[in-house]
């Protein structure tokens, strides 16, 4: 007992010393970002840091993001790279934890000397990564939904947002669902930033349509049973129930709502209807659920770049198709690498300028980054889950609507606090 105590105390002292030294180094680096970027070599491998939650409840989506991002890297390298310089993906597990993500990102920048950072799969985690990258003056292309990252408070010129945001997604789904299924709406919402932002998106889309909110029931994130919320929702008799949660929560909530027979009188809508959640939940449970997405592989029927991307993914992963969030990993990495080529240099400021000028169609039709907040202006798909007429086991949704890229569906630059 005594010996362990002594060794603990010893460990405490050395740990404190290490921490102090580390904090000093970080502070020093923080004050001299320009020095740092000059010191960064203009030769050698182009490194892209990729922090995503490989373990935890979004593990399935995160692993798919890595698979798709690797395709963008492979494609770039097979085309000869940039002036002979090849790209490399440095994947790190952020464990869906903002603190862990900040540490991993700092390591990627300081120790691994990455040129750019792409990644994240959580509204909160991406803000934490963004905090580190903006302080270090490193480009960060986020591939996960958030409204806050567009706002001037969190944003920096190094911040890009490849994913959709809740305002766009819930907006598109709301405009489709409220005009089609009815104007009395109830919400079942995960009680954190993602859920709240989605409800706000639905409500602002519903306002011009005269939509009435009957209740916004907030559940703790990660709940495994939703049955206790359902009798009340049933008694409110809404036309539409918006289930604003993500991943496993979505599977559980939809499963139990189906079990309670809610679907007979109420249309169930999810702002983001996940491919992986639908696969894990099964066809009967998700039957008829409507939701939004950035990408669904059947887009290949009409969009040639989608077909090209899917084919590459199928070839690399035994015939599997990319999921929605997976595809974002591809687009996020490819847009940074394309900007490097266009800029003719890996220098951060010039790559930022090249990304701002980018007009791209990588996998889902035309896209570009809006000037004021670097939000990728892109289409939003409205999809419906099906259990019949499936072409194969991957054919789980029908595309029922597409909202084309249009800045009017985004929050205005002034709303976000930008001088536009």
């Amino acid at each position: 007992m005594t010996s362990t105590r002594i060794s603990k105390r010893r460990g405490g002292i050395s740990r404190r010393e290490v921490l102090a030294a580390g904090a000093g180094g970080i502070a020093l680096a923080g004050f001299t970002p320009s020095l740092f970027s000059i010191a960064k070599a203009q030769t050698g491998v182009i490194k892209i840091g990729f922090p995503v939650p490989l373990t935890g409840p979004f593990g399935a989506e995160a692993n798919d993001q890595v698979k798709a991002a690797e395709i963008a890297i492979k494609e770039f390298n097979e085309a000869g790279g940039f002036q002979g310089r090849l790209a490399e993906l440095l994947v790190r597990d952020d464990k869906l934890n903002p603190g862990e993500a900040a540490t991993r990102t700092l390591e990627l920048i300081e120790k691994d000397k990455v040129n750019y950072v792409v990644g994240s799969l959580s509204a909160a985690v991406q803000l934490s990564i963004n905090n580190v990258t903006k302080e270090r003056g490193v480009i960060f292309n986020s591939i996960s939904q958030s409204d806050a990252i567009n706002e001037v408070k969190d944003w920096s010129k190094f911040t890009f947002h490849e994913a959709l945001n809740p305002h766009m997604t819930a907006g598109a789904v709301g405009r489709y669902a409220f005009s089609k299924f009815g104007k009395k709406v109830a919400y079942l919402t995960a009680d954190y930033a993602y859920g709240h932002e989605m409800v706000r998106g639905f409500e602002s889309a519903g306002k011009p349509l005269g939509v009435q909110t009957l209740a916004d029931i907030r559940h703790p994130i990660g709940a495994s049973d939703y049955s206790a919320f359902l009798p009340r929702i049933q008694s409110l008799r809404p036309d539409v129930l918006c289930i604003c949660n993500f991943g496993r929560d979505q599977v559980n909530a939809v499963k139990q709502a189906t079990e309670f027979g809610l679907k007979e009188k109420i249309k169930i809508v999810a702002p983001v209807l996940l491919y992986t959640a639908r696969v894990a939940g099964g066809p009967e449970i998700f039957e008829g659920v409507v939701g939004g997405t950035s990408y669904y592989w059947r887009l290949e029927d009409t969009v040639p770049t989608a077909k090209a991307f899917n084919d590459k993914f199928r070839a690399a992963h035994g015939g599997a198709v990319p999921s929605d969030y997976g595809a974002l990993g591809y687009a996020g990495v490819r847009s940074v690498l394309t900007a490097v080529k266009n800029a003719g240099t890996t220098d951060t400021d010039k790559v930022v300028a090249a990304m701002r000028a980018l007009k791209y169609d990588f996998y889902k039709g035309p896209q570009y980054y809006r000037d004021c907040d670097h939000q990728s202006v892109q289409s939003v798909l409205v999809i419906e889950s099906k259990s019949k007429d499936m072409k194969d086991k991957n054919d789980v949704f029908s595309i029922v609507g597409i909202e084309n890229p249009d800045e009017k569906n985004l929050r205005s630059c002034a709303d976000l606090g930008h001088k536009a």
Partner: protein
Amino acid sequence: MSGLTLELLLLQVVTGVALGSVFVLLAIGLSLIFGMLTIVNFAHGAFYMVGAYMGVFLYGLTGNFWICLILVPLGVGSIGLVVERFLIRPLYGRNIDDPLLLTFGLGYVFIETIRILFGLNGIPFSTPAGLRGAVDIGVGYFPLYRLFLIGATAVLVLGLWLFIEKTKFGLIIRAGARDPEILKVLGIDVSKIWLLVFGIGTGIAGLSGILAAPLQAVTPEMGIPVLAEAFVVTVVGGMGSLIGAVTAGLMVGIVVAMTSLFMPEMAKVSIFLLMALVLLVRPQGLFGRAGLMG
């Protein structure tokens, strides 16, 4: 709150009882093992998860839910027998922390194994055909499957109670829990009894897993949150008490249902508040014997 009717309140109570049934199922296995063996089984949630996966897998092979309800507890219980015989038995007589740490690690081994075998994403499972849909119970529509669950739990609890209280074998188990030394003197092989109790406890955990599979997503991590809930129920009811597990399970279910109705944000916290309150008044739990841990 608008639209509050007597029907809604009653329906909410029934929802709570159904929710409580799952808690009861989980807690009786945990409580049985603790009461007889004084082992805090941290792998209980993992046994529950393995039960769900085994159930979905066997359902895919047989297409018969009822057969699965028999095979799964036997299968998971067999894993439990192996675990007791080769991993836990060497730890008897040692500090209570040792089996706790062992089962804690074992839980992670199970989770990783399932991830390797079935993937990270979880697998689909729907309510079996005969038990789908909602029926009118007088105060509103309620899912048939959850009614079945309440019934199944009642039958299981009754069966277990009869087994422990009314059979000769149950008498030996109870005696073994009170004083294993005397039992040995009387010429009874205590280690066999403990083996069987651990098998029954884990078998019930597996059965709760397959019974819960139609209710929630079947994923490798599904046992983690329920383990915490099962511990709360066991502690509230009193570690080692069957009647305590049943009372506390139903109580926790109803408390969760009621807070979900009036203060949905507090639904998760409410069960821990309940635990704190009960422990302040009765540190050994509602039906627990004082000083069992010592």
